[in-house]
């Protein structure tokens, strides 16, 4: 599962990238993709449902890049 998470999240991110910008681990969720805090919550819930995990909101505020998001989700998945 953990191995898949990067690819799965990258695929998911395409839906939050309507302008089709090139994205990667260093892409900034807020600054580059213009995802505000409300939309970020939807994204988090999608990831949670997909992998059947709980991502604590307390840690979401610190996310900047897609890489941060992947690492956070992978960390939670590993613990479960």
């Amino acid at each position, binding site marked *: 599962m953990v191995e898949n998470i990067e690819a799965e999240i990258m695929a998911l991110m395409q839906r939050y990238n309507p302008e089709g910008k090139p994205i990667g681990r260093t892409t900034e969720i807020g600054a580059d993709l213009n995802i505000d805090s409300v*939309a970020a919550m*939807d994204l988090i*819930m999608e990831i949670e449902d997909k992998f*059947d995990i709980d991502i604590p909101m307390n840690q979401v505020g610190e996310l900047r890049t897609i890489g941060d998001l992947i690492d956070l989700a992978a960390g939670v998945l590993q613990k479960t």
Partner: protein
Amino acid sequence: MAIDIFDKYASIEDRHRALLGIGGDPFGVKVDRIISATEALIDGRHTILVGTNNYLGLTFQPECVAAAKAALDTDGTGTTGSRIANGTYDRHTSLEAAFARFFNRQKAIVFTTGYQANLATICGLAGPDDFILADADSHASIWDGTRLSPAETVVFRHNDPEHLDRRLTRLEGKGQCKLVIVEGLYSMLGDTAPLAEFVEVKKKHGAWLMVDEAHSFGVYGAHGRGVAEAQGVEEDVDFIVGTFSKSLGASGGFAVANHPKFDLLRLASRPYMFSASPSPATMASVAEALHQIELRPELRTRIWANAEQLHSGLAALGFHLSAPLSPIIAIRMPDEATAVMAWNRLIESGVYVNLALPGGTPNGACLLRCSVSAAHEPAQIATVLGRFAALASELDSRRQAA
């Protein structure tokens, strides 16, 4: 060169500048003079207010004003500190007793702002080994309360008890207490929570339920106790939070509960412990406003009639409304530029509504948000609808030209 401390806000600044390029500042409206609960002079223009959340129109209620004036004379302008440092006045105690009585609950605590009521209640209730489960459309004060709490916060889909159920199932056996937080009436779209279904889920999992009735207090339920009363589930709602700044016409907040140890929040919740307590004039006007709500059920009859007039009128004009009938009527605009243009047309024609844009709205919605008051006259709403009709035809011709 050193980095400017405000550089981090460059994108906010750019967005605001673009907004100002279209017209007035929707987020910095200057009220020259407030005339009544429903009218103000804005930019020298006589304006009908349809975005103040002054649901029962009590801000100029003579009894409330008189009570506040009398309190100024007897108790002075402020308490100058928190209750743990400067003491509890008779007014604090009697206002809390009045809220407890109003809600038929054992306990009530008042706060200095509605925002603080949520911060204090949430971070006071949810500790390090607890979980908070919050509706995705929650108000900023709820999110900020979760940030002050050491509990882990998990989000569930808006108004989706089944999703909450799944979340709680996943958390089975983890942590100690689970605090579920929902609102009665959601402030942006004007939709209400299916509280009876949430109650079923919380009982199934042995969780605690807090309902923020900021926008529904005074308006919903046979006695104005909110959506929990309207849906007949008050007994299963553990904590109700509300504000003085909408139906009660002042500023401040409250929380009520039946838990015998609720008062422990006074010794454990930092937003309560370290904020100056509500001022005497505020408490006096709120106590009187609470009395007015009990005394005058016709206020609720009137606000619902006004809501119906505006809601059906806007629907007839072809506007896309975001929820069934409520005192909050949010019109969906196709995009931010149209929403800003429409907001400007309305303010220029003497109608004040709220502009609500993504960041502050769910699902990236761009909204013209109206809220009606019991103090609106049907003729004022008819005038407002006339101005919306002009806007509708302008939007139509723009659409056709595009």
